[in-house]
């Protein structure tokens, strides 16, 4: 399935883009992350959470949504 991935803050600095679309045939969020770790080697050193369709999910969650976001630590306020 086609997945839109969004990157923010210091994660977008590593990926050098704010979003991209990927064709994904796996099951879990962790499998999707493996693809991204391969593509962006510096990503492994970064602290981030994953949101799927705008809700935080664990990396063991199934990829069900079409919108995944990699969110670095929050700094609001």
């Amino acid at each position: 399935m086609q997945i839109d991935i969004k990157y923010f803050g210091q994660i977008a600095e590593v990926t050098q883009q704010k979003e991209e679309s990927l064709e994904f045939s796996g099951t879990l969020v962790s499998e999707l992350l493996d693809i991204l770790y391969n593509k962006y080697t510096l990503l492994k050193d970064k602290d981030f959470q994953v949101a799927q369709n705008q809700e935080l999910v664990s990396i063991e969650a199934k990829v069900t949504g079409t919108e995944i976001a990699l969110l670095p630590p929050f700094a609001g306020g």
Partner: protein
Amino acid sequence: MTEKKHKNVFQKGAISSEFIGNSIAKHQTKTSIGAHNIFLGQVRADVIDDKTVTAIEYTAYEDMANAKFHEIREAAFDKFELTCMHIYHSLGTVKAGEICLFVFVSSPRRKIVFKALEYIVEAIKADVPVFGKEIFEDESHQWKVNS
């Protein structure tokens, strides 16, 4: 997943004292209110390794952030007897000394607004996907993390 469009909490740039003053003035017609409480987040000129922060550039996952602000708002109305509540957060560049977060709660009674305001501000800091790039005077930067 929510498809509903939430109120937009974000404003471009700093939140001005005129805007804050006008918000207060607008409540003079709501005479059941006996107490307001206001939180203003201000950009701090932190010194890190001899370099001073001159501004923070805010970005956000806007759709998710507005949904989270909405959830925080609903939860606060459930928990506390509030007459009204307003939240505004900056996006883009806010210089040191300027206001980047404005939270305004109102209730018939004072004790409620003290508790409600703390609850709301802590929830914003913990749950809303807003990101802050701290810009130093030499134009280098680091990423802010809420503690």
